[in-house]
């Protein structure tokens, strides 16, 4: 029914060379599909062409546009549209996989321009997107062309059902679970609390964690806070009482293997994010690394942790509640080890082996009864009449 090797086109809306969740998701997915013998081409906006993987096709320079509380590097306009059409026409894909097709981007343009088997993945789940979703009536006929929709989390799915009145299959983001199995670094182990991320961004919630530190220190005199991720430590330290500041160590940006060691070593990993998170890939990675996780109870996190089954949840933005969780966990090695063990097993659920198979299943279902992906304009009535008159 279906030939084993498919030709798959993936469209990435955001600049390929700016780090981001969607980009790394696509990179891993493309890598996985290629290793399975499929032909994959990724169309993405690119700033700097020099270190591009073979499978990425440059769609042009992205524009920096303030969007959804951050600066998004996206691309649209007539030139981009022409490139998208060219790419679709040249490649004769069996299937298009469009990421984030509901924002103004080349994903939306590709959806608009083509006809055939198309799968869309919706990553975002922000309330702040209301302005964009207000143009629903225009988006609707376009989004409707997708034969299948994937949401990366229940939260993303809800955004989709409320704003665009359409349902989706939930398939989480993928991680390489085995690569997160690190070694214990004695410097990072013990009564340590780990935090990872761009700590200067308010929504990452470092402030909540810093406020809880004095409370934690009362019960755990040796408690230390390890902060990994890019940013300037001075901006954080200058606001703090020196007694507290000396408990904090900044590790800077970690490599992948250091990240695995970090998650395996820390006494507890804390994710105090205050919102704006759709999935929480970092939690899946922390679990895979065997960290005992404490997270704020925002919907994305309580979904990943199955309402607290695989990690402790504290009331979002409540430092006292956070401190209580941390003290309980670090003082109770048995609970810590139990969470670490069960969390690590559970994290296999997010491994690419599982996730990519589920995505591929959706591909197979979407492709049934469809020919190659082609440009819409071929099938419009007047073009059909035009072609017909040309043939004669």
């Amino acid at each position, binding site marked *: 029914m279906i030939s084993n090797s498919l030709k798959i086109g993936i469209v990435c809306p955001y600049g390929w060379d700016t780090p981001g969740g969607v980009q790394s998701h696509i990179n891993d997915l493309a890598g996985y599909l290629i290793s399975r013998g499929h032909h994959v081409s990724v169309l993405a906006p690119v700033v700097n062409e020099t270190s591009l993987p073979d499978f990425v096709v440059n769609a042009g320079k992205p524009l920096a546009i303030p969007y959804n509380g951050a600066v998004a590097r996206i691309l649209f306009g007539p030139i981009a549209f022409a490139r998208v059409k060219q790419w679709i026409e040249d490649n004769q894909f069996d299937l298009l996989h469009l990421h984030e097709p509901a924002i103004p981007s080349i994903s939306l343009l590709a959806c608009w321009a083509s*006809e055939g088997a198309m799968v869309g993945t919706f990553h975002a789940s922000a309330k702040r997107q209301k302005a964009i979703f207000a143009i629903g009536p225009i988006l609707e*006929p376009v989004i*409707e*062309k997708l*034969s*299948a*929709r994937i949401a990366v989390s229940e939260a993303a799915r809800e955004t989709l059902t409320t704003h665009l*009145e*359409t*349902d989706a*299959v939930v398939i989480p983001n993928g991680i390489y679970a085995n690569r997160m199995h690190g070694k214990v670094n004695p410097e990072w182990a013990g009564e340590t609390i780990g935090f990872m991320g761009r700590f200067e961004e308010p929504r990452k919630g470092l402030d909540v964690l810093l406020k809880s530190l004095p409370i934690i220190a009362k019960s755990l005199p040796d408690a230390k806070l390890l902060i990994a991720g890019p940013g300037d430590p001075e901006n954080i330290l200058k606001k703090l009482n020196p007694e507290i500041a000396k408990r904090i160590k900044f590790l800077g940006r970690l490599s992948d293997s250091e990240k695995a060691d970090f998650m395996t070593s820390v006494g507890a990993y804390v994710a105090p994010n205050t919102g704006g998170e759709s999935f929480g890939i970092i939690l899946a990675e922390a679990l895979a690394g065997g960290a005992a996780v404490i997270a704020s109870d925002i919907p994305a996190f309580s979904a990943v942790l199955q309402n607290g089954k695989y990690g402790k949840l504290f009331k979002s933005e409540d430092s006292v509640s956070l401190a209580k969780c941390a003290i309980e966990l670090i003082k109770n090695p048995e609970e810590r080890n139990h969470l670490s063990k069960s969390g690590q097993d559970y994290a296999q659920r997010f491994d690419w082996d599982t996730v990519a198979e*589920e995505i591929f*299943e*959706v591909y*197979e*279902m*979407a492709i*049934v*009864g*469809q020919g190659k992906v082609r440009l819409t304009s071929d*099938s*419009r*009535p*007047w073009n059909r009449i035009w072609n017909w008159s040309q043939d004669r």
Partner: protein
Amino acid sequence: MKIGANIALLILFLWYLSFSATRLDRLHHRVETSWANLDGLLQRRAAIALEIAHSELVDPATSLILTSASHQAREATIESRSEAESGLSGALGLLLTDEPVTGVEKDLLRELGELTDKIRVAIALHVDAVTRTQMVRKKLVFRLFRLAGSAPLPVKYEFEEDVI
């Protein structure tokens, strides 16, 4: 001047009608293909169920139940399909044991598992296509200009929601 504007409007409107007709046509096509796909998968499930019934995996009683359930599912009319497929799901539920299975039977069960995952996705896609089509066809412009032509309004069967 005024005539020109009117003609432009008319052309725009005709374009919109053509656009809407294409849109609905696409949806109808999706309902048909997603149903054909789901139907095919269900047929295959019934066939595997029958094979399992005739294997050494099951005791005679289970075998009897499975055989009759899969025959019912294969021969059901459109009205009784829902009930028959749910019945087969129930019968297949009997196979869930903790005992390790080996040999040919293991392959059969694995195939059944894979098929079940696919059916779950196929149901989601089909239900979505049907609801979408029903929604679009309720809109005024589609009813007023009879853009659906003579295509029947797609209907949802009960079993589509909880066949697994």
